[in-house]
C-alpha cells in the first residue's frame, strides 16, 4: 500500500505492473533530459548579450529539431505499444471471480466450482484495531491464490464504479449492464489495497478494494470455510 507523502508508484505485485514501472522510468528519464536541455537553452538565451537580426532561416537546425523529436517519440512508443498488447494477452485463467460494485461496497462471487459470494464493506474508523489502515480495510477480503492467472469480471449494480488495485496494475470500470474483464497474476503473497476510482455518490471514498494473495492450500482452506459459513 502507499506510505505517507509517497509520490511514486507502489511496489509491483504482478509482472504487468513491473513492466509498467520500467516503462515509466524509461519515459521519465527521457522527459528529464529534454527538460534539462530546454532549461539550459532558456538560460543561455536570456543571458546572451549578442543579437543577430539577420537570421532568416537555418536548414540544419530545422532538420535536427524535426528528426530528433521523431526518434524520441519512436523510442517511447515502441515499449508503450509492447506493454499495451501484453495487457490484452489471454493467459488461460485458473480462477474467475466476479466483482460487482454497489453503493457503497463491493461484492465478490466465486462461482467456478461452488456458489460462494460475499460483500466487502469498509471497516469504519471507530472499529479499526491497532495496525489496521484507515479507509482501506474491509471486513471481507477478496482472497486469491498466488502465482495463478486470475480473471476478474467487473460490473456494477447501480451507478458507475471502478475496481482498482495500484500494486497489481489493474483499474477497470464497473459499468451497470456491462461486463469488463481483467486478468492478472499476483507474484508474491500479501495484502493489496485499492479504492473505488469512479465517482459514485456520497461514500465513493469509503468503498475500498482489498485483495489478499495466499498459497493455494490456504486459499482452498479459506474457500471451504467461507462455503461452510454461508
Amino acid at each position, binding site marked *: 500500500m502507499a506510505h505517507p507523502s509517497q*509520490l*511514486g508508484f507502489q511496489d509491483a505485485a504482478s*509482472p504487468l505492473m513491473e513492466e509498467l514501472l*520500467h516503462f515509466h522510468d*524509461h519515459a521519465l*528519464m527521457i522527459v528529464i*533530459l529534454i527538460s*534539462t*536541455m530546454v532549461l539550459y537553452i532558456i538560460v543561455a538565451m536570456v543571458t546572451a548579450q549578442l543579437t543577430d537580426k539577420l537570421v532568416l532561416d537555418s536548414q540544419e537546425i530545422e532538420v535536427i529539431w524535426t528528426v530528433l523529436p521523431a526518434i524520441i517519440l519512436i523510442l517511447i512508443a515502441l515499449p508503450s505499444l509492447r506493454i499495451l498488447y501484453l495487457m490484452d494477452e489471454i493467459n488461460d485463467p485458473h480462477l474467475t471471480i466476479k466483482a460487482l460494485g454497489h453503493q457503497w461496497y463491493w461484492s465478490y462471487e466465486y462461482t467456478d466450482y461452488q456458489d460462494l459470494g460475499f460483500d466487502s464493506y469498509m471497516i469504519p474508523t471507530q472499529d479499526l484495531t491497532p495496525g489496521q489502515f484507515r479507509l482501506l480495510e474491509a471486513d471481507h477480503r477478496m482472497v486469491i491464490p498466488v502465482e495463478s492467472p486470475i480473471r476478474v469480471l467487473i460490473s456494477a449494480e447501480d451507478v458507475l464504479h471502478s475496481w482498482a488495485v495500484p500494486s497489481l496494475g489493474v483499474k477497470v470500470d464497473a459499468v451497470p449492464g456491462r461486463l469488463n474483464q481483467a486478468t492478472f497474476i499476483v507474484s508474491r503473497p500479501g495484502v493489496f489495497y485499492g479504492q473505488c476510482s469512479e465517482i459514485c455518490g456520497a461514500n465513493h471514498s469509503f468503498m475500498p478494494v482489498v485483495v489478499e494473495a495466499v498459497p493455494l492450500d490456504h486459499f482452498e482452506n479459506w474457500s471451504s470455510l467461507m462455503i461452510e459459513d454461508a
Partner: protein
Amino acid sequence: MTEEEKQINDNKGFRLPGIQSIQSTPCARDAILHGAGGSLAAGLLHFLATSRVRRSFDVGLGGFMLTTLGSWFYCRYNNAKARVQQRMIQDGMKNKILYEGSVPDPVKQPRAETPSSPS
C-alpha cells in the same frame, strides 16, 4: 508508533522526494553520475582546446545528455536481460519440482537399450 520508532524516524532527517526516487530507480543513479562525469570531461576538454566558455558549456550539456542516455539504455538493457533470465530460472525450478520423476520431466534421460543376446 512506539517511542523508539518515532525517534528513529526523526533522526533520519529531511529527505527530498525527488532524490529518494532516483535512489530507488534501478540504473538512475549510475546514469546521472556517468552523465555528470561525461559532461565535466567534455566541457573541460573543449575549453582547454578552444578557450571558448559558452561553447564549452554547450558541449558539456551535449556530453551530459549523450552520456546519461547511453549509460541509462545500456544498464536498462542488461537489467531487462537479467530479469528475463531470472523469470526463466524461476519457471524452470517450478517445473522441475512439478514434473520430477514423471514422463514430462525435462531432465529425465532415455534408458539405454541393452543388446539382446544371440540365440
